[in-house]
């Protein structure tokens, strides 16, 4: 503020005063605005606050109503107690029924073939077994559409699943499943015999057991007595039918140069018969059990 300056020059002073007044006006406007903004913000905040307050009141009212209704229901339920106990006993009955059914469904695995409905079809499970031993399980996930197709499966790659499906899947699903069961059970049985021979009767084998993926060709050299003086025989077992667990072809040969004495020739022939008629590990169990003689009681 410079009053001395404005009074000195007249012409300039008017412009000076007006300019000064203008300056003061803008200053005032600005400070007004600065006042207004927080005021506006405050006004907005207070409207929001009232709104929140109203909503909270509404919420509390609704909560109280819910509590009231619940109390009413409980009261009526308490007064009607015999009905409630009836309900729970019904519920218990249903629960036990449900548990039983679940157990039955789980027990189906012992039949060898079980399944569970999926959203698109059914997931069939084949549980293999051999001579009373439960072995691996395999799954086939079928999609029920026209045509029926296999979504995915855990069947080993060397089982001819595609062939079996091509033959039976579209025509007769049951036939397909049974055929697949046959193949898988037979494979599991052959594999079991080969595994048992390798693990339990390794002492009888003079070299490694030669086998293939399907376990349908087994070739090994064995001695009648472990580490004994008997001659080593070479056995070659072929399973030309993939649904069997006993070999279709058996050859037992002698690897020596000399001719076999008659007793050993007889043994060779009888071994051939044994392999053809008895499962592999049982044959070797009989060798181990007797130590020299053939156990005829183990033959079927």
């Amino acid at each position, binding site marked *: 503020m410079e009053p001395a300056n404005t009074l000195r020059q007249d012409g300039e002073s008017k412009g000076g005063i007006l300019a000064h007044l203008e300056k003061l006006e803008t200053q005032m406007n600005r400070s007004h605005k600065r006042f207004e903004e927080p005021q506006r913000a405050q006004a907005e905040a207070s409207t929001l606050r009232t709104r929140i307050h109203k909503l909270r009141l509404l919420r509390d009212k609704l909560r109280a109503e819910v509590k009231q209704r619940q109390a009413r229901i409980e009261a009526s339920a308490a007064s009607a107690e015999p009905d409630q106990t009836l309900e729970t006993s019904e519920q218990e009955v249903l629960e036990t029924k449900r548990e039983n059914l*679940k157990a039955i469904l789980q027990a189906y695995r012992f039949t060898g073939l079980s399944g569970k409905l999926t959203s698109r079809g059914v997931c069939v499970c084949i549980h293999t077994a051999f001579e009373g031993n439960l072995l691996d399980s395999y799954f086939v996930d079928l999609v029920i559409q026209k045509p029926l197709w296999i979504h995915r499966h855990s069947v080993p790659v060397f089982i001819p699943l595609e062939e079996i499906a091509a033959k039976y899947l579209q025509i007769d699903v049951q036939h397909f499943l049974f055929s697949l069961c046959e193949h898988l059970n037979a494979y599991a049985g052959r594999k079991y015999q080969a595994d048992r021979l390798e693990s339990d009767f390794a002492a009888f084998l003079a070299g490694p057991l030669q086998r293939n993926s399907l376990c349908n060709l087994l070739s090994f050299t064995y001695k009648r007595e472990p580490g004994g003086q008997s001659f080593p025989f070479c056995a070659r077992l072929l399973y030309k039918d993939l649904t069997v667990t006993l070999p279709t072809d058996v050859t037992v040969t002698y690897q020596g140069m000399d001719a076999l004495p008659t007793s050993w020739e007889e043994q060779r022939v009888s071994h051939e018969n044994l392999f053809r008629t008895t499962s592999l590990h049982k044959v070797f169990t009989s060798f181990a059990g007797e130590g020299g003689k053939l156990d005829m009681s183990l033959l079927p």
Partner: protein
Amino acid sequence: MDETVAEFIKRIFLKIPMTNIMTILKAWDFLSESQLQTVNFRQRKEPLVQELVLLCEEKCASLNDAALLDIIYIQVHRHQKLWDVFKMNKGPGEDVDLFDIEQFKSSFTKILQRALKNVTVSFRDAEENAVWIRIAWGTHHTKPNQYKATYVVYYPQTPYVFMSLSRLKRNIPLLDQALMIASKHHQIVKIDLRSRYLDSLKAIVFKQYNQFFETHNSTAPLQETSLWLDTNMDLRVIHENKIEKERVQRVTRETFGDCPQPRLEFAQYKLETKFKSNLNGGILADREEPLRCMIKFSSPHLLEALKSLAPAGK
């Protein structure tokens, strides 16, 4: 030991990263425990390799031992090769496949050796009864080139063979023939599948992906909570499309499963379809002939990318 064999072994050792050297040596099982104990495995690669090569010379490593080492190297680093997939067919009404591995190996080797005098064939068994075959090719006049070998992975009693073909293309017909005759098949066809990831190819070809199956006996309950509507999110946020999202998630899970997907890098589809349009009078709308086009999807890991589209809301 032949100088070429020594050089070959040295080059293989130099390729092996330090972390894998011990595993590969153990799998090779050529150098004895006592020999390996004398080696200092903490030194730098070049002196280590020289020591190992000297030990191999002491033990008179043959070309076959070196070839075996090469197979093991490739088995461990199988993603370094590009694998093609072939399918073999038997004639109709053929007998059951009584696969005899010894017969196969001798038959295969004999066929190749009869045709080309100079060829190195090596076999190694692997997991799931697979047979790995390594063939180094020569001609009647030249020795086999050990650095450009072909590798074949055959799963006996299945129709599938995986091959990593070297650039020597002229030997492919002979290889095909040897495989067919030795394995008693009539025909071999290349199928439209190729990848560096042998395990993914196996999973696709043998349909071994996603091995989780629903049964009544499963003790682990199916995870009800979804993977991406996760519990860390604010509970005050309600999803509008919850039902739709859950449906998408269920379908995705049914199609893809929970396990990691086999690794595909690109998929190409030939499409032949009629154009459907809501707008009348579009250029393509009234065509009688179907539209033919080829669509190609590519990604570093195609199936996982598709699987993750679902939570992204597509």
